């Protein structure tokens, strides 16, 4: 009895592992194919057009600016509050700028922007592809001689890789400004002094660390969205399930990659 149960357990584990591996391979080949079309599409008479890329960039980036601004400002305030509270223990409140500056540009801005885009645009991508799949729209593209990867995957991929670092940079600015307003009010210093201190503590390297991560997050969000959307089966319920899954996977991927990247680059 126990042996039989163990057998089923291992059977399930093995199958799940193989499925996961297969999905990983699908994601990798999808990314490769997308890059291939981006570079060589012209030669195959399947040019990647500018108009859908711009439309996607508007949708992914510009439309998300208000919420990015609000969240970035909130995170900046939160860091300032917590930073001053922590450093008060040592009576070192005046050194709070260093902590705020580094944690914002290296971690919080790229993370919060990535997670936001995963929730907004990654899920939308998964839902759109999933619906297109169950409506035979993807088959329809294929039989028209239009490669679905070139037509449906490359535009959002390019848009995300361009927009996400830009949004992260914007989040850096907003977040640092919000933190600065709080810090200068609390510690009775001027905003200009805070700005001067920022310039001395922040290195270009730190900003680039955050922006590079956000470009990786952009690829992750797009590919996870596309893989889940393309794997939809079972009608409207399937679309809902895969959309949820794409958000969970994308956010997990972002957080794990963030740690790995920091580990590899920072030591």
């Amino acid at each position, binding site marked *: 009895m126990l042996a039989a149960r163990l057998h089923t357990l291992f059977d399930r584990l093995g199958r799940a592992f193989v499925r996961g591996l297969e999905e990983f391979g699908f994601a990798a080949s999808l990314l490769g194919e997308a890059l291939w079309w981006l570079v060589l599409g012209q030669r195959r008479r399947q040019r990647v057009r500018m108009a859908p890329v711009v439309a996607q960039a508007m949708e992914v980036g510009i439309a998300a600016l208000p919420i990015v601004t609000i969240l970035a400002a909130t995170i900046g305030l939160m860091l300032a509050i917590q930073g001053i509270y922590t450093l008060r223990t040592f009576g070192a409140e005046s050194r709070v700028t260093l902590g705020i500056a580094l944690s914002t540009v290296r971690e919080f801005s790229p993370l919060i922007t990535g997670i936001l885009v995963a929730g907004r645009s990654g899920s939308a991508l998964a839902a759109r592809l999933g619906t297109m799949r169950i409506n035979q729209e993807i088959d*329809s593209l294929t*039989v028209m*001689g239009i490669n679905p990867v070139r037509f449906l995957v490359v535009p959002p991929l390019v848009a995300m890789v361009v927009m996400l670092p830009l949004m992260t940079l914007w989040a850096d600015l907003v977040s640092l400004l919000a933190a600065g307003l709080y810090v200068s009010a609390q510690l009775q210093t001027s905003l200009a002094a805070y700005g001067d201190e920022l310039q001395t503590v922040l290195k270009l390297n730190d900003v680039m660390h955050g922006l590079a991560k956000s470009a990786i997050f952009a690829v992750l969000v797009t590919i996870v969205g596309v893989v889940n959307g393309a794997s939809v089966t079972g009608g409207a319920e399937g679309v809902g399930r895969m959309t949820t899954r794409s958000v969970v996977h994308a956010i997990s991927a972002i957080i794990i990659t963030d740690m790995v990247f920091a580990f590899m680059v920072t030591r």
Partner: protein
Amino acid sequence: MTAETNSIEVRNLQTYYGSRHILKNVSLDVRMGEIFVIMGGSGSGKTTLLNHLLGLLRPSSGSIRILGRDVNAVTPLEKQELRTRMGVAFQSGALFSSMSVGDNIALPLREHTQLDETTIGIVTRLKLEVVSLAGFEDLMPSELSGGMIKRAALARAIVMDPRLLFCDEPSAGLDPVVASSIDDLILRLRDAMGMSIVVVTHDLDSTFKIADRICVLDKGEVLALGTVDEIRASTSPRIQNLLNRRTEEAEVDPDAYLRRLMGIRDGDEDEPRGKRL
């Protein structure tokens, strides 16, 4: 050169989904300029056969030649070129829901030709006239009725003036009058443009109205293949059952019945892989 007379040649096509044998040694020819109807009940394999003809699935064995080219042996670029010479109207229409009707129809032109926008607009409206949808180009697909979606899908399928047109269940889900008007449209398209048309359907009335030749599929086999009169005159009881809408007596197999009741499955019933993006 057989390509002169046949637009499609299928030879000994076999397909398995897992261990289920879906298509069993299917061979058929579609001649230039004829309306060829693939008929069969649910689960007869007609959708699978259509997906093979469209190059969406790879057969386990056998060959498919479309317009003289073996679809599973051509280079990607040749396949793309071949696909611009065939049009497909899917059962659900499969119009892109994010684009207007006009943009849907113009898409193949925008992607595959160097025509300027004015010409594309003219061709698009011309095709909409053909399917009696003039003036609807600015509507979104969600604003169309069932019959209009089928018409728009046909307009998109013929926008590149294909040599070969596939229609999947053109009259399914429509009321008899609208269904009949779609049939008239298919006949008119063939007469006006001289294309070969492959229609997949289970609708008997429309089959007899439009078909030049009929292929009856049953459980993955070609049960009969011939002109309308030959099929009508067939003495095969299974064909007569199909024509007279009699339900078939299920074969009695007590062992299989018991196995089903016990929940023992015969084989792995996986869906076909590889048809993702």
